């Protein structure tokens, strides 16, 4: 099994850290993993993306032509990556960040209203974990217990008290993801 994933959005949305948590979760599961960030002069408000590969076999290229799964968190990222989802692949987006409908009809499209849910939870930092929860509902590539272990590994110790909040956000994300097509 191999999952080739792009996560793309604005800087500050937790794109890179969501990728990191996914990569650490894969590590906990004993998979081969690669995490390749765009590392331009990114900042809050600029665009950021990360390619994460989880695989049972050694990973060759960290740079890909196309992706099994695209997680799209803003409009520029949809414009850039919609055409790069494999036929039959998956596109997950946040309803708040996307203004034009997905044009592709040969892929599975899901929506997580993570920004709204994060606002409801009064915790905008839960945003990326809501998205991650949605992803794991559709493609359970790693077990929740390993995600929590991954969180522990990737977060500095002073933030470990936030793990229960993250777990709640992941579970909420699993509830609110809906198929669009």
């Amino acid at each position, binding site marked *: 099994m191999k999952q080739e994933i792009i996560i793309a959005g604005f800087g500050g949305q937790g794109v890179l850290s969501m990728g*990191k948590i996914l*990569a*650490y979760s894969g*590590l906990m599961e004993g998979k*081969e*993993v*690669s*995490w*390749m*960030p765009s*590392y*331009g*002069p990114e900042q809050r408000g600029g665009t950021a993306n990360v390619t994460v590969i989880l695989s049972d076999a050694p*990973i*060759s*290229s*960290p*740079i*890909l*032509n196309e992706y099994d799964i695209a997680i799209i968190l803003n409009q520029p990222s949809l414009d850039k990556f919609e055409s790069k989802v494999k036929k039959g692949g998956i596109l997950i987006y946040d309803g708040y960040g996307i203004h034009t409908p997905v044009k592709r009809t040969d892929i599975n499209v899901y929506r997580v209203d993570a920004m709204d849910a994060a606002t409801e939870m009064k915790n905008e930092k839960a945003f990326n974990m809501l998205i991650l929860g949605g992803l794991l509902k559709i493609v359970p590539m790693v077990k929740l217990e390993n995600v929590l272990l991954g969180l522990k*590994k990737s977060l500095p110790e002073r933030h470990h008290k936030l793990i229960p909040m993250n777990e709640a956000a992941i579970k909420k994300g699993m509830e609110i993801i809906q198929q669009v097509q």
Partner: protein
Amino acid sequence: MTEEVKLMKGNEAIAHAAIRYGADGYFGYPITPQSEILETLMAEKPWETTGMVVLQAESEVAAINMVYGGAGTGKRVMTSSSSPGISLKQEGISYIAGAELPCLIVNVMRGGPGLGTIQPSQADYFQTVKGGGHGDYRLITLAPSSVQEMADFVGLGFDLAFKYNNPAIILADGIIGQMMEKVVMPPFRPRKTEEEIIAECPWAAQGKPAGRKLNVITSLELDPAIMEENNIRFQAKYRKIEENEVRYEEFHCDDAEYLLIAFGSSARICQKVVENARAEGCKLGLLRPITLWPFPSKIIAQYADKVKGMLSVELNAGQMVEDIRLAVNGKIKVEHFGRLGGIVFTPDEVLAALKEKLF
């Protein structure tokens, strides 16, 4: 006991590996995309554990001259930078090569020329393997293509540098520096004691005991007759390195009709190209030089008798391709494909270029 597998960036792996290898000192100046090396060393505070010195110098020029000084005392010292910073270090590197001192240099390449971009590139191939600084000298050049090799080549680089009293360089790029992968760290080794250094490096400036000749560390020799002798000695050493230290990796080369030749991150992308081409029924192989100097010319010459053509795939305008053509000596077609200035090719682009240029 199973070793602990960690997930880290290539740059972080270099820093951790240096501490574990028992390096005595790191002198550097921050520059993207390799700043995590200095940052990780500062966060790890090895001066409190192994006694390793970590110092942010006032400039790249200062850092390489600190390396020169440290190396002169037989210590295991290193520096790291990215392309523009490595250009600044070239005078010092030439002096270190001329004084025949061992040290480790890391270049995590970015797109140039000039200040260029911070995105990945392999455009410093010429600078690294053909000189860079002035004079007839060579750098032992290791090109890692994974985070694991970033860690492993710290030890290998130091070992080769001390084996031949010559600077070694790890030539990586922004992809390998910034990506995270699984890595198994090398075991901890204690730093060499002063007594061990005096025993193993009789040339080192470690304090002159009575009766011993003065150890002078210099690259200056005003008598051209002696300077020529020095150069002849350097060249004899370089021939020995070329004979003994060539390293490369073959990927599906056995039955290959065409060969990709690529190093570092390009080689990772080319692995995928080989997988995709083989799925289409095209017998493609990949030869990955691990040492760029000494260059694996012999094995490439042997493949020139077996394959129909070679494509040198590099993130530059065509540099390693010249060394491949020298090795092949006109026997078969050797072409180059690259992207420039920080743009990275996708596997599809490489396969399309192969078909266009060689089929």
